[in-house]
């Protein structure tokens, strides 16, 4: 992958150079709007913006990750679109996708940083062993993940944390978090951080966020977890096609009961849809074929912080995470002992009082008259 400077051509010019007709561009904009979860009425705005957009330089850093996020992106169900996006952005550094290796690869990163100082985007997948962790837990070219991250984001325009590991720490951070894994936003405090969570995130959401930045030249509106509201603004539950069953109180109670066959709500099978914010219910997976709940499996809540430590995947949302009936009994027994001891003491005291109780005499009563 040759090191490129951010080209001077706008996206519109670049697309027309590729021989794209105006109808084709209109279609591209319709698809883009859909991808950014924007209404079709936004298409003219998008067309105007895209026409004038300039392609940014992107540096993709992979840390403690499983490459699932990259797999997801490259299996984006709109390959034409993905090609376009990946062609119109300048992906200057990506472990998995770049052709360069060894020092040349690292050189490419440094060059892109130098050339696009203050303008390039950094995409991160995977969590990072924190500054206090053993730097050897995860390194690239002998440099700790932490150092690479901090060095790379220093002059970046913004950071996009892709996947739950980068966004929230994910699996590496799960209890007991042996590597002291941290999320990007734990470490990067002075740059805009956008989280595209999910394990993996929906590919269209990754490209959607990039397109948004590309189209409008700024970051999308974010929720409290720095996730783009366009995709993470509503919970799975609120957009779930099975929601009417929840509202009517119709639940599958096992994976092969009548309710499961009839496609009823999966709440009782552990669905975390009510507390999970993501766009699966509308964007779906695998070329829009289906998504977990449609295929009969409860939502795991993978786009939320600590989802690995949030209780069993097949325990309903309302079930507490650690408490057990045994623990309650133990506490109860302790209570009985404490209360019992207190009462025995009080009783002993009272017994002494009763033993020394002075009977009321007529003389005492007469005194009162």
């Amino acid at each position, binding site marked *: 992958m040759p090191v490129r400077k951010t080209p001077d051509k706008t996206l519109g010019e670049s697309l027309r150079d590729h021989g794209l007709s105006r109808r084709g561009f209109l*279609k591209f904009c319709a*698809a883009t709007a859909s991808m950014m979860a924007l209404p079709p009425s936004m298409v003219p705005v998008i067309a105007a913006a895209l026409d004038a957009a300039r392609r940014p330089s992107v540096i993709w850093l992979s840390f403690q990750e499983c490459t699932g996020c990259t797999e997801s992106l490259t299996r984006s169900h709109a*390959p*034409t*679109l993905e090609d376009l996006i990946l062609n119109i952005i300048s992906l200057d550094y990506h472990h998995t996708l770049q052709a360069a290796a060894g020092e040349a690869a690292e050189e490419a990163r440094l060059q892109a940083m130098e050339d696009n100082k203050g303008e390039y985007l950094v995409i991160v997948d995977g969590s990072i062993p924190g500054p206090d962790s053993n730097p050897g837990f995860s390194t690239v070219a002998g440099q700790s993940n932490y150092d690479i991250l901090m060095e790379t984001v220093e002059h970046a325009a913004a950071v996009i944390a892709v996947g739950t590991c980068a966004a929230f720490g994910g699996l590496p951070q799960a209890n007991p978090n042996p590597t002291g894994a941290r999320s990007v936003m734990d470490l990067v405090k002075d740059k805009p951080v956008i989280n595209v969570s999910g394990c993996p995130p929906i590919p269209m959401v990754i490209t959607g966020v990039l397109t948004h930045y590309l189209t409008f030249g700024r970051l999308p509106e974010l929720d409290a977890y720095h996730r783009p509201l366009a995709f993470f603004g509503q919970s799975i539950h609120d957009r779930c*096609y099975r929601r009417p069953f929840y509202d009517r109180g119709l639940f599958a109670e096992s994976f092969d009961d009548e309710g499961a066959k009839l496609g009823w709500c999966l709440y009782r099978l552990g669905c975390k849809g009510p507390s999970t914010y993501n766009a699966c219910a*509308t964007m779906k997976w695998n070329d*829009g074929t289906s998504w977990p709940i449609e295929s009969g499996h409860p939502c795991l809540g993978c786009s939320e912080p600590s989802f690995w430590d949030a209780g069993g995947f097949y325990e309903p949302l309302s079930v507490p995470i650690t408490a057990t009936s045994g623990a309650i009994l133990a506490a109860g027994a302790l209570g009985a002992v404490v209360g019992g001891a207190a009462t025995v003491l009080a009783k002993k005291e009272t017994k002494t009082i009763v033993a020394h109780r002075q009977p009321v005499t007529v003389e005492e009563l007469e005194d009162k008259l």
Partner: protein
Amino acid sequence: MEQLSVTLGSKAPCAGKPQDHGHTLPILHEIRHALERLIATGEETRIDLNAMPFGPGDLDRLRAWLGTGEVQASVSAMGLTLIQETAIPGVWLVDYQNADSQRLTLHIEIAPVPEILRPQPQDLAEAIATLDARMDEGQSNPPRPS
């Protein structure tokens, strides 16, 4: 138009008939309002069906409600775009596909003619120049298709 029968749902054989999740009715109402606007003010509306929380069978159900009209068309630009008029005049299904015939997005368009069928204004502005250029180029014979 065989490609349009593609559904959003799984095509895997299923034990029972897919349940009605009640998602089609609100869209039909939305279409109705859009038609009112179209007739009254000429305002066109596009509805992105990709943004709908459809369950299995919901899209087929919506298509059954809308029926099939007389006009079918296709646009060949960056892959095919297939256009099908529904049984309701002014209500169109527009299926945007990529070069691999995978759907990019599916719109319902409430308009006299879907926008993608109309020549784009900038293209129209260049129409005479384009014609002149072709006449110049071909002299007496039409130019070979590019």
